């Protein structure tokens, strides 16, 4: 089986296909590619022996736009990258610019940021679970997942007025004071949520079809995962216990106790288990955080006009999909000289070819699903 890193083009376009081989095009308009991903598959019967991802259909030049906006103006753009986890994107950007400025958000803002970001992680994982299960053929979880996700979006809406592209934070802290019932709303959502996760698991974890479709599919060993720069649940399912929230704590994560779930086999099933466990851990973080939200200001000391001193910074956070990094260079003016966004979806997708080889066409949707990509972030 060809497993060496021969690019697809050399296979399909410059060599003659074998007698049993065909090239199958999937996407960009395909319901299970989660957006506009196009995959070229080289098949031997049902078996995938090579693949190439064609991306860029959603490219909007976000990094170029950043060079023509002020630091403040650019903040809402990052919400539109990973649009099912806009809060996390905003957190990463705001913290990166704060680092560049040498400013810090006050404790109250940091705790509220943590709560909202963890809720966003749950929402993102719920959306992933619903659509992933739907791709593989389990319709029911989608309804349950979106039901719970709706509760989270309602909290976001109450907090900042938006549900999807929230722009919840500001550089230096928060624009909005938390509304009065934030704690009780979060508590009302989180208290019974572990039962909900059990409920999803009862539909899938021991379901023979689910297990058959996910166990042993798309294996990525720890060594390969590191080689491919995978991060987030994809990395952890391969057994690497690494989470930026623990390794390099940001926001208020150093104040809370939580576990880093890991898998053993690095297959689609393990990634599912890891994400389910992560939802439980996020719930615990939220519950700890609402116990004690410090009083005080919500905005740190940053000027109205942001002019970071010349220099550069790389700041990464643990977004729901993995390491979301911002590499920002300041030239001392009000606009960034360069903004580079390290998108977890793109880098995780890179391992797709490695994971799919030797599996069947039907597993393509399982592996795309398990990578939890959002094309807005892949293409930026």
């Amino acid at each position, binding site marked *: 089986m060809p497993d060496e*890193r*021969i*690019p697809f*083009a*050399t296979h399909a376009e410059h060599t003659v296909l074998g007698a049993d081989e065909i090239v199958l095009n999937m996407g960009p308009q395909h319901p299970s590619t989660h957006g506009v991903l196009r995959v070229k598959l080289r098949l031997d019967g049902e078996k995938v022996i090579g693949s190439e991802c064609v*991306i*860029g259909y959603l*490219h909007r*030049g976000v*990094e*170029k736009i950043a060079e023509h906006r002020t630091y403040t103006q650019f903040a809402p753009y990052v919400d539109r990258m990973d649009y099912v986890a806009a809060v996390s994107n905003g957190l990463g950007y705001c913290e990166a610019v704060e*680092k*560049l*400025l*040498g400013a810090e958000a006050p404790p109250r803002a940091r705790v509220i940021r943590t709560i909202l970001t963890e809720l966003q992680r749950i929402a993102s994982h719920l959306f992933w679970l619903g659509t992933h299960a739907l791709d593989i053929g389990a319709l029911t979880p989608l309804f349950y997942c979106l039901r719970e996700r709706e509760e989270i979006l309602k909290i976001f809406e109450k907090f900042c007025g938006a549900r999807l592209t929230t722009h919840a934070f500001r550089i230096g802290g928060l624009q909005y004071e938390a509304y009065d019932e934030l704690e009780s709303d979060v508590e009302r959502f989180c208290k019974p949520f572990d039962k909900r996760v059990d409920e999803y698991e009862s539909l899938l974890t021991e379901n023979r079809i689910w297990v058959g479709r996910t166990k042993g599919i798309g294996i990525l060993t720890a060594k*390969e995962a*590191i*080689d*491919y*720069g*995978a*991060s987030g649940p994809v990395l952890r399912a391969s057994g*690497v216990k*690494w989470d930026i929230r623990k*390794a*390099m704590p940001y926001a208020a994560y150093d104040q809370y106790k939580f576990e880093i779930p890991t898998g053993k086999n690095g297959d689609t099933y393990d990634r599912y288990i890891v994400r389910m466990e992560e939802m439980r851990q996020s719930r615990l973080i939220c519950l700890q955080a609402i116990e004690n939200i410090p009083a005080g200001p919500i905005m740190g000391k940053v000027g109205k006009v942001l*002019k*970071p*001193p*010349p*220099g*550069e*910074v*790389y700041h*990464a956070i643990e977004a729901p999909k993995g*390491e979301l*990094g911002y*590499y920002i*260079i*300041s*030239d*001392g*003016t009000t606009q960034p*000289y*360069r903004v*580079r966004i*390290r998108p977890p979806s*793109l*880098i995780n997708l*890179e391992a797709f070819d*490695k994971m799919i080889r030797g599996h069947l066409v039907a597993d393509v949707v399982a592996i795309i699903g398990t990578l939890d990509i959002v094309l807005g972030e892949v*293409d*930026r």
Partner: protein
Amino acid sequence: MVNDPEEKQPPASSPTDPSAPKTPAAGGEPASAPPAAPAAPAPPAAAKPPAPPAAAGAGAKPPAAPAAPAVGAKPPAAPRPPAPPAAPKEGPVALENDLVKRYKEKFGPAILEAWTDRKQAILVVARELLAEIAIYSRDDEKFDWLSDLTAVDWPKREKRFDVVLNMYSMEKNKRLRLKVHASADERVPSVQGIWSTANWMEREVYDMFGVIFEGHPDLKRILLPDEWQGYPLRKDYDILTQDTAWVRENLGIESGQ
């Protein structure tokens, strides 16, 4: 405020930086990495502040030069050269610690500059030795996880591109940034064989900046269509001309603006 990209670039990295003993390496042949005992200590002190444009640096090969920057050096640099930047204000601070020492012992003049910015370590290395230094970083220094590879365009510099590698070590829980300088027609060694993840990142840098990576197996555009003209993230990229050309060709009108 400084408006010129040249000047706000952390002073240490100014392309014409006269830290003479090392600078020639950028264009020259540092292939062999001599221990370079005397050369090593000199530059960090010099590396920090030679803000003076020092245009002469380009040709400066005689190792006598280190004296020059020292003269022009800002006084504050001397008092606090060590790594822990207790610096009052954010900004680049020359870096001299064990890590840098090990790199310098191994690669000598190929390590051009070292400084920290916002407490993050940055090494500028010779372009020709990037692959060797990357292998050393991965295997010996355990920076085994390449988190990001990107580029920055400084059009006014002689070597206009910085290719930037952000490495992370899970074992040490540390990040390290490697930079190489390259002019528009210079090729940068690919690190795709060292970290598979660099494959798409290098394609993206090629797509957006037009930097060619030597040894990349499949260097082609990744986000933009194959027939795209120009490299959008270059500072001199002219979007209006491109737009007008596209509108003329595809819509048959003079301008879409």
